């Protein structure tokens, strides 16, 4: 049976995508054996599953995701963390790997306002997400700078098989961490690189639904770097 769209076509809510023997994936729903889009996004057919990739929208927590958050409230019993989502997350002493009577003693309390990178270990409709920082690469984030991008655009910042993030790490800074919730943390040793990185992230965010993005970003970085160099040269002469 034919579908009602071309791959990567922009569709709006309530648009008929296909009729008959298909399954509805993310961003679509089934009604009377017909598949409709429920959000504004790019329609994609994979096998028999039709889904719509969102262009806007909140971060919906998923077990196993790495997220970056900010401590809202801290006590020996646990911490509440803002993870830029529709629910705030919690970290408990019991979510540490260390079990037994000593786990409570090992729990390190962060101060309110401190940033951390953590993994979601439990979440469903009935309770808020629970985080852990008891893994390699997770924990407090010290120094650096944090910017927010749309959570729906995180996959483009990472790129196909990590191509985009590899490019950013090679060209700009290797101290960069991206949370699935759309918060990017990075640390550089020069303001110029930092400014370029922010500009590049904004560009990726704006043009997330277009093709050939990695190449264009590569060129933009080159251009911005040259511009910076020219400024420095002019100041020196």
């Amino acid at each position, binding site marked *: 049976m034919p579908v009602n769209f071309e791959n990567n076509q922009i569709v709006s*809510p309530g648009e008929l995508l296909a009729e008959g023997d298909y399954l509805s994936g993310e961003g679509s729903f089934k009604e009377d054996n017909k598949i409709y889009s429920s*959000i504004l996004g790019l329609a994609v057919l994979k096998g028999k599953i039709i889904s719509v990739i969102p262009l806007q929208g909140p971060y919906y927590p998923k077990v196993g995701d790495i997220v970056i958050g900010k401590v809202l409230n801290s006590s020996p019993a646990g911490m509440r963390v803002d993870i830029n989502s529709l629910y705030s997350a919690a970290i408990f002493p019991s979510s540490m790997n260390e079990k037994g009577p000593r786990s409570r003693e090992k729990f390190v309390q962060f101060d309110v306002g401190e940033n951390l990178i953590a993994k979601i270990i439990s979440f469903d409709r009935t309770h808020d997400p629970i985080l852990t920082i008891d893994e390699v690469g997770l924990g407090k984030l010290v120094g650096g700078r944090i910017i927010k991008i749309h959570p729906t655009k995180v996959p483009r910042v990472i790129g196909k098989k990590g191509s985009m993030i590899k490019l950013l790490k090679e060209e700009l800074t290797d101290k960069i961490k991206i949370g699935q919730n759309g918060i990017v943390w990075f640390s550089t040793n020069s303001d110029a690189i930092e400014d370029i990185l922010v500009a590049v992230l904004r560009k990726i965010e704006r043009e997330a639904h277009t093709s050939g993005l990695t190449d264009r970003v590569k060129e933009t970085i080159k251009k911005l770097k040259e511009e910076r160099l020219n400024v420095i040269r002019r100041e020196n002469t």
Partner: protein
Amino acid sequence: MLFEEKIPEKLIRNDGLRLDGRKIDELRPIKFEVGVLSQADGSAYVEQGRNKIIAAVYGPRELHPKHLALQDRALLRCLYRMATFSVSERKSPAPSRREAELSTIITQALQPAIFLEYYPRTSIDVYIEIIEADGGTRCASINAASLALADAGIPLRDLVAACAVGKADGQIILDLNDLEDKYGEADMPMAMLYRRGDVTLLQMDGQFTIDEFNKALELGKTGISKIYQLQKETLRNKYLSIRDEVADESEVRIEISKEVEEDE
């Protein structure tokens, strides 16, 4: 009042057109725009005739105070507010009975369209600000709010489109303006999930015979279908325009690289 409003003797002129020059089944000129506010999760600006409306959507987000939260779905809250300068005589900034009523009916008109059950214990807040009012603001507000919801990436069963029908000088007319609303014989705002044919808002002020009512309902549907198409286009264009812009850029680049090759 600064300018004394003249009560028109006739709402439909001798040549069969209305006072503002429209045909009886013609909509006012409409302008939709989405993503107008940078701080909101979704937003829309609507001009329908002389109506000017901004709608902003925040959410789904954590609900405070917590005791309002629903355990199985999100709570939809709409606030309709008129700016003090939106009407010819200054409107008091205090919330009026009318504003509270419209907030409620707009909430009820939008609610069936949203997949609220996807986001339990949260709230979706819609703020509608009337900058300038010229009749039919509740319909234009619903159009704006529905666009803003889609712009915020909230899952919808369908877009909600709304339009008013009424009666003036014995004729059924579409999309009433302020004068026709005030001095006409009937006014019936309606909102629909157009694809499904579900009517989510139907109010009536004045009198219709049963025949006239059925005729008005049909005319309303044709008006709503036009608005619905325009809403869809507006949403798609927001992203298509960026896509085209990028495509233009890459074309320019290809041309440059060709020139370089020729030079060599």
